[in-house]
């Protein structure tokens, strides 16, 4: 499966948030890790695309007043999503082996 660079980041963020992955949390994590604040529009369309591709599964949580009475939508990494990330990672590592001084491997990092 093909995913874009930003989608990959979103997928990683959702995966690392575990049970608590919903819009604002993902946005904050991304802002924290990358130092760039993603626009809410870009983030949501990425989330929906990933859901369509089967990388994410969503479920609805409870409504709170600070969300204007709207429910949270929690995302969960699916097996397909996990495979995609593994795929992407493997590709990276393979490439990096061929570049001198860039011996990226799973155990080193």
């Amino acid at each position, binding site marked *: 499966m093909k995913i874009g660079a930003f989608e990959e980041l979103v997928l990683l963020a959702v995966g690392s948030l575990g049970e608590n992955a919903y819009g604002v949390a993902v*946005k904050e994590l991304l802002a924290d890790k990358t130092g760039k604040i993603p626009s*809410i529009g870009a983030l949501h369309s990425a989330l929906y695309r990933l859901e369509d591709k089967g990388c994410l599964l969503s479920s609805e949580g409870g409504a709170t007043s600070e*969300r204007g009475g709207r429910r949270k939508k929690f995302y969960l990494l699916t097996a397909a999503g996990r495979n995609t990330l593994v795929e992407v990672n493997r590709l990276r590592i393979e490439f990096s082996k061929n570049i001198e001084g860039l011996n990226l491997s799973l155990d080193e990092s």
Partner: protein
Amino acid sequence: MNPQANLTPPKIPLKFLRWFCNDNLIEDVEGDLSELFNARRNQNQAWARLLFTVDVLLLFRPGIVRNFQFALRLIKYAMLRNYFKIAIRNSFRHKGYALLNLLGLVVGIASSILILLWVDNEVGMDKFHVNGDKIYQVFRNMKQSNGVVTTTGTVPKPLGDLVMAEYPEVSEVARISWPVDLNIGIAEDVAEEEGRFASKNFLSLFSFQLVAGDKNNALNELNSILISQTVAGKYFGDNWENALSHSLRVDDQYDVIVTGVFEDIGDNSTLDFDFILSTQAFFNLNEWVNDWGNGSFYTFLSIDDSEKARIVGSRIFNEINDHTEGNSNAGDETVILHKFEDTYLHSNFDNGVVSGGRIDYVNIMTVVAIFLLVVACINFMNLTTAQSNKRAKEIGLRKVMGAQKRAISTQFFFEAFLFTTIAVLLSVLVVMLVLPAFNNLVDKSLFIDFTELKTWYFLGGVTVVMGFLSGTYPAILLPAFNLIESSKGGIKQPAFTAYLRKGLVIFQFAISTLLIIGTSVIYKQIDYILTKDLGIDKENLVAVRMEGDLSKRLETYKTELSRIPEITAVSAASGNPINYGRSTSSASWEGKDPTEGYEVKVILSDEDFIETMGMEMLSGRSFSKQLTDSTNFIINEAASKLIGFDDPLEKDLSFWGIDGKIIGVVKNFNSSDLYEPIAPLIITCVDPSRSSIALIRIEGNIGEALIAIEEVTQKLNPGADFDYQFIDQAYADIYENELTVSALATIFAVISILISCLGLLGLASYSAEQRSREIGVRKVHGASVSQILILLSKDYSRLMILAFVLAVPFGYYLTQNWLDNFEFRTALDPFLFILAGVITFVIGVLTVAAKSYQAATVNPVNSLKHE
């Protein structure tokens, strides 16, 4: 805006989001946005609202937007693209018209934005107080001679005490003084600041923010002082907390403790001050405030609702008279309430009743702004319909290809909206460019606040309304063209369109004429004010403030000043005689009706006053040094009439416990602005050391004289500021408002006629084009250029004359109304009306003639060769 509204995200973007967002996603998206909004709101509300809007706009993207009926969208989109393309091509093909069109719109919209920014600022004065709608100011109406009532904000202290004690409807009574100048500082480091005395609850009633100190008890102690950030910064640095509990020395007499630092008072407050002292401290030192007959500080009441305010208003009305009854010195004084928020715009009182004020100018300028928009709109309409013949082929072709009438209407609406949108954007740009100059002119710091929703509503509103107004007519007219005629390219527009165009031109020029009439009348009145003989020679007269105890050494000061060669006369007085307010109701004379109380102005002065001021004595004599005149009085004509003796000389007069005789009557002079009639007045030289200003008459080199005066003043009073003003300048300053409005009106009258002429230019070239063959034929048959010029200009000249006839009655009514505000006013001069008519006529006809001349000089071969 109420605070509740800020708790929820802005409504319009939210509605937009709900409209376009996919139903499956709205729950998630809106929830996230609300959560973000709530988090941001805690930092900055306006910013949070803006970010929310931006986020919504960023969400408008494929993947989130719902599935609209796709096919339909495609067609509309394609047609809109086509309309857009055709509109652009057409504008480029007829660059001249497009430019005229845009220029007219941009100038009109930009000017109205400027005006409305000014209006908005005026209306926003004093509106920042949270409890603003509950604050009422107390005013005192004082009955003068001949039933004229003057109104003042100075209110006897016992009245406020009584209201607090006995009126259950009133929850708070706060007092604040007039501005006072005091020397404040630490040790030798002293500077003069302007501040006020205020009562304890002043801070809780009004919303002035403290950055240090406790709002609730900052003014509890007699020796408390609150200072502004500016003053605090000067002595204690930028950490405001540092200033607290430090002591400052006031006027080298007593020490006060800083108990608070407040934010510098902004431009949007009429109450301004750099420090606040306790009113109680002032009251303790000034016994006179406890008398019902003496007006003291401005008094404000906090009343919960307007119903209660009405009850208080009717109960308080006679309160002063009830308490001064039986006191022979008392005047006839009634009390009224006036909502504090309104006092800035409605500050004129006519016989004790509010009768306008700055609101008049705000209204005038609002009307001017609307006029300008209408004039610009008319241009657009006229040019579009006049030009529409050129589009006839296009419309015919569209119809042949199956376009419905509705589609063609849409096209012309689209074009109108496109144009107005571009024009609005350009106008905003223009406004930003000219704002610095405009601010200079009106002496404000206006700016376009893009974080304000109001701004967007206005810009959006103008676009929609202007687009609709200017698009409707072409959008109705053009689709109705006959198919066969229009595809041939020749179309005769129905006769009424020509009439309508003419009617609109008349309307435009009537508005321009009206504005010119208004401007010239304002000019004439201001000229009248500035050159009026006030009864005082106000040229070359300088008033110097006597600081500290300089007035106690008045004689020395005067002698020293008289040695300066350029100085011809020196006197002292208790205030600037052309803008004077001090009065008493305690004057009594033989035969005075004891039940009637009259306020009479009192000027404290010295023996040289009449001579120095260049006043004219009607009868009797001026004060003299040889005779002991300290208990003798000079009165003015108005007072003489009030007292009512045939010959007032040598009659007894007493006030403030001084019994004396009238020794002279001085010719009436204006002791307040020209909105007011001349009030009765007494001049006394009983105690010249109570004067506060020195009045100095200069002849010759003014610059050198000023330097010499400053030297003498500094020598006698080292350390004090040298504070002087020219009396004629001070007089002109009173009419600053009128001068600003006159400058604005002039500029916008010019702009209005400019826009009208742009439209006329377009119409004239259109009709010249239409009649090019006719002109050719006439020329072939021997018509001269001037004959053709007359032929072409004749139609439009008629319109100009009609416009003039229409403008005159309105102009007369409106200007006479305005002039009636003034007690002293210039007469309406028919010449001004004619002048306005001639100006518009000449400019209009010249515009038409210039274009017609072009058409008339074309070689007939060129216009006829196609036949």
